[in-house]
């Protein structure tokens, strides 16, 4: 009984001792962490700018951005095109253009990037396309004080906006402005060339089996309109709807565009079975266009625009 109460008293006395020691260490650690956080915080927020991204979020961007991670091939292309390729420290396995991009560290693919690797690269900004659907991921990055900028263009104007804003983020506003101006001139030239032409009714085959196409929210619908085409699925809700075989045939497209080649390889190189009897297929108006120029809303989108316009209206462009 006595021994027990003795041990109990000792217990009572030893606890605060441990607790105190532990507390001191904890406090020191906290202080260290806190100071680290605040120093980094002040460095970042010193002259932070706020930019509204395509998801409607206000993103606070540090004044001088010299470390960027891109999580989509089109964003990597934009970063290089505005002359900030040297500031790109991370990219996805899909980012294969320009060739210099391949020298940048990989952080996984667009759908499954490695959070640890991204944080280890210490970027100030991570560029995301909504195609990657990274909501939880975005919160975690923001928790690490890394700005996440979301792009989600629904038309060519939106693509130009992405280029301009990414240029602004990396401090290459002038170069980006110049690039956009050039792209606008090329776009205007295409639009002028096809202006008098009757728009061609086009079915855009994203994939043949099962049949996917472009809908109302896809920027390719806008690109096609500018190229003198009219997507037969322009009113279908969504950006990449799964489409009914019979509706595709019933739409009687005059031309079919097959985005293929590039990083798609030989995939999607054939017209879907359901469209074999369409006017487009019967008259041989099936055009293969490099998927990388069409599916990546970036500087090469205007290449895609030109290729599409030349395919749909060959007589509008002198050889």
């Amino acid at each position, binding site marked *: 009984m006595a021994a027990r109460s003795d041990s109990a008293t000792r217990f009572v006395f030893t606890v605060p001792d441990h607790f105190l020691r532990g507390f001191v260490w904890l406090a020191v650690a906290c202080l260290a962490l806190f100071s680290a956080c605040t120093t980094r915080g002040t460095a970042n927020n010193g002259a932070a700018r706020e930019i509204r991204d395509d998801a409607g979020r206000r993103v606070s961007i540090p004044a001088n951005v010299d470390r960027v991670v891109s999580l989509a091939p089109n964003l990597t292309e934009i970063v290089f095109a505005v002359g900030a390729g040297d500031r790109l420290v991370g990219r996805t396995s899909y980012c294969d253009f320009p060739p210099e991009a391949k020298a940048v560290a990989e952080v996984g693919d667009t759908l499954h990037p490695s959070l640890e690797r991204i944080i280890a690269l210490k970027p100030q900004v991570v560029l995301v396309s909504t195609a990657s659907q990274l909501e939880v991921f975005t919160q975690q990055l923001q928790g690490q004080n890394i700005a996440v900028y979301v792009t989600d263009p629904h038309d060519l104007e939106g693509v130009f906006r992405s280029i301009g804003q990414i240029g602004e983020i990396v401090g290459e506003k002038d170069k980006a402005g110049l690039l956009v101006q050039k792209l606008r001139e090329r776009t205007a030239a295409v639009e002028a060339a096809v202006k008098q032409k009757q728009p061609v009714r086009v079915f855009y085959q994203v994939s043949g089996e*099962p049949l996917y196409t472009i809908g109302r929210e896809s920027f390719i619908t806008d690109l096609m309109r500018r190229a003198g085409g009219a997507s037969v699925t322009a009113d279908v809700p969504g950006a*990449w709807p*799964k489409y*009914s075989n019979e*509706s595709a045939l*019933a739409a009687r497209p005059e031309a079919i565009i097959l985005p293929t080649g590039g990083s798609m390889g030989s995939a999607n190189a054939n017209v879907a079975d*359901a469209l074999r*009897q369409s006017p487009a297929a019967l008259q041989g108006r099936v055009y293969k266009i490099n998927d990388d120029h069409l599916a990546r809303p970036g500087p090469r989108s205007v290449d895609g625009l030109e290729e599409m316009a030349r395919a749909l209206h060959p007589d509008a462009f002198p050889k």
Partner: protein
Amino acid sequence: MITTASEAVASPARRKRVTLRKTIVTCAVMAAALLLAIVLMSLLGSEQLPVRASLCALASFGTSTCGLTQDQFDILFQIRLPRILLAAAVGGSLATAGAGYQALLRNPLAEPYLLGISNGAAVGTMIALVFFGAMEWTRPILAFTGALAATLAVYRLARGRAGATPERLILAGVIVTTFLSSVIVFVTVLMDATRIRSFTFWLLGDLSGTSKALLPVAITIAIAGALALTLNARSLNLLMLGERDAFDLGVEVGRVRIVVFVVASLLVGSSVAASGSVGYVGLVIPHLARLSLGSDNRISIPAAALGGALFVIVADTVARTVIAPRELPVGAITALIGAPLFIYLLRRV
């Protein structure tokens, strides 16, 4: 359920004739319903076709256009009808396979989807798509191999010292299903991004990619499989008494087991290769067949085959019309209808 089975066991010759007549009448009625569904559902779709002309063209078996335009004719005969026939083949196959597993394993919950056999076939099809993408004929073969491997794995896992209890079988199925699901996830991650979307759609069960080459294969296997299991229905009836009793009554248990496993794997393999994993058909339809017609397999297996065909045709018509011109995967519809129906059946029994 067991009582009816033992009645069937003890049936004298007269009873046999009665059963045969009942089978024929049931099958004739259901076949008529199936035919009617095929015709009616061909009139529905994202595109409106003139009803009369379509009926006339269907009645002429496509030899006359009956005033349909070329496009309308193509929609009816090149797109809609093949898809409906594939739906029938897939539904019939899955329901037959489910009825076969349930009789052989004496487990009302045995179903290709729940036992992981569909997933086995899916893994096989994925391997065929990734490694032999161009060779379409490899898909059903590898799907069959996958289904058979999954069947054997589940069967081995389920056999404990106390024999294969129903709970043990379902647990083995859950384990195989989750394991194969992770294999599928693993392969999708390795697959290039452009194919992932079409793949997820296919995994949920999708009939829109009806392939001209696979359709006759699927129909042949569905019919042959249903016939094969119906011919073994008497042995399956006896097996419902227990393997030992069935053996004593002269059933070659080992042979019947191999027949059911191989036939059911063929059925699941061909339907998964053609349409992905359409769930709940193999569970709900055989149950409905037994509830309404009794558990004599000589009647319930062919009835399940025809009922499964009917069910998937209707489910797929919903899938392709409800948000037209966009589409849903048919597997989502069968699960939406099948799961509540199954709960209802469970509570009623």
